C-alpha cells in the first residue's frame, strides 16, 4: 500500500482479486484504506455527517456487489470515487437539491475577471468558505477542482450538459471570490 492519502492511495491487484472472490478480509482492508476518503468526498458535497456516513455504507455495499465488474483499466480508487459520487448526487437529487439552469442563464456571459490574482491565498478555512455555495455548486466545484473530474464526467453524474458544469463552476468561483473580497473588506474596516 502506498503512503499517499485519500483516493491517491493504491491497493494491490492481489487484494482486488481476493475481493473479487468475495473475501471479507479483503473488503475490510479496502474499507479501512478508503473509508475516510469516501466520507470526506460525500460530506463535502452533501454537508451532513450522518448522511455522509450512510452514503459510505451504501457505496461499499455497491462496491461489494459490483466488484466483479471492475476491470483494471483505471485506478481502483477512481472507480470507487465514482460510486461514491453517484451515490451522493443521487441523494442530492432525491432531496431536490440539484438545480437546473435555463438557457438564458447558460448563455449569460460573466464578464468578471476571476483569475487576475490568487485570492484564495488569504483564506484560512476553506471548508467554511465552500459552505457558502449551494449543494449543486459545491458538488461541481469539489468534483472538478479537488477530485479532478472533467466537465464531461460531471455532466454524466448529473445527467446534464457540459455547459451546465462549466457555467456552474465559473459561477461558484465568482461567488467564492465575492465572499473572500467581502471578508477582506470587513477585516480592513475592523482594523481601522
Amino acid at each position, binding site marked *: 500500500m502506498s503512503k499517499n*492519502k*485519500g483516493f491517491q492511495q493504491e491497493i494491490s491487484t492481489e487484494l482486488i482479486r481476493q475481493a473479487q472472490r468475495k473475501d*471479507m478480509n479483503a*473488503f*475490510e482492508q479496502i*474499507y*479501512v484504506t478508503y*473509508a*475516510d*476518503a469516501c*466520507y*470526506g468526498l460525500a*460530506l*463535502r458535497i452533501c454537508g451532513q*455527517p450522518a448522511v455522509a*456516513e450512510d452514503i*459510505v*455504507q451504501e457505496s*461499499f*455495499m455497491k462496491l*461489494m*456487489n459490483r466488484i466483479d465488474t471492475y476491470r483494471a483499466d483505471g485506478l481502483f480508487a477512481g472507480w470507487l470515487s465514482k460510486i461514491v459520487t453517484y451515490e451522493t448526487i443521487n441523494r442530492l437529487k432525491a432531496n431536490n437539491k440539484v438545480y437546473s439552469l435555463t438557457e438564458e442563464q447558460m448563455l449569460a*456571459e*460573466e464578464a*468578471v*475577471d*476571476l*483569475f*487576475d*490574482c*490568487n*485570492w*484564495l*491565498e488569504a*483564506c484560512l478555512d*476553506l*471548508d467554511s468558505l465552500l459552505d457558502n455555495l449551494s449543494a449543486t455548486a459545491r458538488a461541481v466545484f469539489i468534483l*472538478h*477542482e*479537488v477530485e479532478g473530474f*472533467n*466537465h464531461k464526467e460531471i455532466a454524466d453524474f448529473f445527467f446534464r450538459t457540459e455547459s451546465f458544469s*462549466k*457555467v456552474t*463552476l*465559473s459561477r461558484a*468561483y*465568482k461567488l467564492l471570490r465575492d465572499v473572500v473580497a467581502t471578508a477582506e473588506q470587513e477585516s480592513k474596516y475592523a482594523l481601522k
Partner: protein
Amino acid sequence: MHLNNEQLLELDDTAKLHLTGCSDCRNKVKNIANLRMGLTKLPILKMPTNNWQQTKQAYLLQLKEQQAEKNNRDMKLWRAGALSMAASLLIVVLWGMPKLSVNSYVPLTKETQLSQLIAHNQLLQQEFSQRATTSLDNVYLVQLNEELSNIDKALQQAYAESVSNKEKEQLWQQRHKVIGQMLLATEQQKTITI
C-alpha cells in the same frame, strides 16, 4: 480576444494554442494553478466511527435476502416443473392402461401390484406437494428432486417404448423410494425450523 473564465478552467486544444501567444492568459492559468494548490490544503475528514462491522452485516443480510429470493423463484419453477411432469406421467400411465370391462376381467397380479405402486406414488407426491411450502434451500432436497425428475423421464420413456412391467415396476419403486426420502427430508427441515 482573451480566454473567458470557463475556457481558463478547463483548457481545450484551442485554448492551449492561444496560451502560447498570450502572456495575460498564461498568468491567469498560473493563478488558477495556485488556487488549486490552495485547495489541496483542504483537511482530510475522518469517519467519526469505523462502520465496517455495520456495513459487513448489512451486506451479508442483503446477500441472504437475495439468496432467499432466488430459492423462492427456484421453488416456484420446481413446483411447476414437478406438477407438469406428474400430470404428463399420469396421462402416459392412463393411456397405457388396459381397457377393462366386466366381461374382460382377468386377474393380473403383476398389473395389480404395479397399479398399487403407482397409486401409492401419487399419494406420496400429493403429500410432498402439501408439505413443501417452505423454500427449497436444502441441497439434499434439490439433489433428490433432480433424481426424481430423471426417474420420471425414464418412466415416460419406458411407457413410450412399452418395456416390460418388471422394468416399469423397478422404476416406480425407485420413484417411491426417492419421494419417501424427500418427505423425510422436509420433515427434518420442518423440525429444524421449529
